[in-house]
């Protein structure tokens, strides 16, 4: 696993907004939880929000993760998300208004084989790998979060995460990093 360079002061100082979305059964909530735990492992104040209840019934699912020195609102405001991590193109497009200027949406990654895991079941961890290359959370915080949160198929999830992380670094290299 590649080691990320240490975060600059400014990236630790500001609030980071990660918007997760998809449909029921795609692992949206699991991904958001892992991201939130990773941020907590990294020492940030974290707030995370989601709506349960109908998630299992195929409806839209979204979860907001915010981390930084001190967070008030558990919800991201439209136009302020640094990342839209979507597992469903339609949902990703529907939520595009949340993205800030210069933010990164994962919609194009859904159509790019370099980002897609062989087994679509692990799409959520693969995309967390991509995110890990772009967001200021150290790799070891992510790995700890993965093993804390995933009870089943940990090895497969770790592999998908590693592949996504590689693709994420390649992407960051092409686009000039975060």
């Amino acid at each position, binding site marked *: 696993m590649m080691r990320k360079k240490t975060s600059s002061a400014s990236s630790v100082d500001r609030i980071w907004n990660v918007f997760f979305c998809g449909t029921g059964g795609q692992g949206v909530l699991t991904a958001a939880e892992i991201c939130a735990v990773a941020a907590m492992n990294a*020492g940030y104040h974290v707030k995370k929000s989601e709506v349960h209840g109908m998630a299992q019934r195929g409806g*839209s699912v979204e979860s907001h993760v915010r981390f930084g020195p001190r967070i008030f609102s558990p919800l991201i405001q439209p136009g302020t998300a640094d990342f839209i991590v979507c597992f469903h193109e339609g949902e990703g497009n529907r939520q595009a208004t949340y993205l800030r200027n210069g933010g990164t949406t994962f919609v194009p990654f859904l159509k790019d084989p370099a980002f897609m895991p062989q087994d679509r079941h692990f799409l959520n961890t693969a995309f967390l790998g991509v995110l890990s290359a772009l967001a200021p959370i150290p790799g070891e915080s992510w790995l700890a979060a993965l093993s804390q949160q995933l009870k089943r198929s940990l090895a497969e999830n770790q592999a998908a995460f590693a592949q996504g992380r590689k693709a994420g670094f390649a992407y960051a290299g092409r686009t000039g990093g975060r």
Partner: protein
Amino acid sequence: MENKRISSVQELLSGDEAVARGAWEAGLRVACAYPGTPSTEILETLAGFKDVDAQWSVNEKVAFEVALGSAIAGGRSLYASKHVGLNVAMDPLMTASYTGVNAGFVAVVCDDPGLASSQNEQDTRWVGPYAKLPLLEPASPAEAYLFIKEAFAISERFDTPVLFRMTTRVAHSKENVAVGARQDIALRPFEVNIPKYVMVPRNAYQKHSVIEKRLLALAAFSENTPLNKIEKGSAKLGFITSGIPYQYLKETYPDASFLKLGFTYPYCDKKIARFAHLVRELVVVEELDPIIQEHVRSLGIKARAKHPTFGIGELLPEHMEQIYKGAKKKELPSSARKPVLCPGCPHRFVFSVLKRNKAIVAGDIGCYTLAATPPLSTLHTCLCMGSSITIHEGFRRIMPNGKIVGVLGDSTFVHSGITGLINAVYNRMKGLIIILDNSTTAMTGGQNNPATGRTIRNEPTKQLSIEAVCTACGADNVDVVDPKNLSQLDALVKQRLAADALSVIIARRPCKLVDRNRLPMPDYDRVKCKTCGLCFNLDCPALVKTEDGHVDINAALCAGCYLCVDTCPADALKRPA
């Protein structure tokens, strides 16, 4: 540059989990609840603590009474429910205010502004003044953890049940919480005290003046407790707020002054007046009803408040500027994907039969309420838990020969359906009730109930026999069928609808979230398909309509239930060879 990261050991907890954790640390002994979004995880978390006696109760009234009984007997106890659950527990609640407690007793109630998963949007804060009980309102999981400990102390100090009100956004958002160890709190001795615990008119009359005095003492407490805190900022603008809007305002107006109410009722009138003097412009921002707003104005204090349109639905961070300006809320049409019954859901079989028979369905609350959404559209009333059997009766009293069917789930039947069935029998009503027994409480995530024969900790217990209960209640016919046997179910429904009898059909097949077995998807013959669309009326997410009206089966979703096969009149959908 100083490192602003948090360094102590923390846990990422939801508001629900934080309440459970804090209550456990506060020496909680007994916890009772009936599930209900967004409060369910409180008891699920408490069940993980071995030294808490946790239970799923049959309904909220039962939960409230058991927990109160434990508090009177001397152990700290907790009740939890969603907002509408408290309606079911209102009878014991109103008089528990009179008896008071012995050891601490806290009723945690989660409101659902925005109706993420509820049948109404009521504001539980009214219950504080109505029941003359103190009401606490945390604005985050970390606060929930701290406030619940305080709630137990207040309960014991003032000999009162305490209302602890959260909302979906607090209950279901997560935050790092620095947790601690369990306190060793001794049981309090129970002493016989008939004037205190036996609420007959004479004793209750005496108690009424006691609780009026208690309210005065609580109001004095409200003035001094740090739960109601003034944060001095700019003298230009001040907000009085409680709960989650505090967080949104802090982000939108970081320089403003704040009076944040965490001990909302009884109000801290002096603090409110003091705060009003500190700032030139005063604005009250609260979610749902204008409760604080009306109180502040009743004190003769001038304060601006949200436009009434913002009293409907959940407040969002992006609303704060519009609220400040006094603007009307702009309703944006929701483009969210609607939830549907899962592929392979046993409920869908029953509704396909009821649709075919053009029945009027008095529905109830559970996953099956989703049968009301088009194109299925086969559930015609939904009011509150248990109301299917009674609304069915009301309909039949006006339309005695109508094809009226009452439909409810197993958990709902046990919660409050049984009384309606007894009422129907007693009052010589005929008709048809269908109990959808999927062996779980699916809507709220799959909790055990008396009919599953398992406790909250999944330990075996005596299993309630729904059929024996129905027979004992006096139903004329009680049949147990597998809904997957569509022709049998259809014939039975026709027969029972024609009979001059009160019949119960128990449609028994486990929920697809319990029985995850799948069969291969059906074969589809494009040529035979007449594109009649009957299969699409089943509203199965696995059946996708192509542009020319043909069927595209989503293999990832299909559970292989073959209801579409049994529905297809053209033999285009077939069981796989």
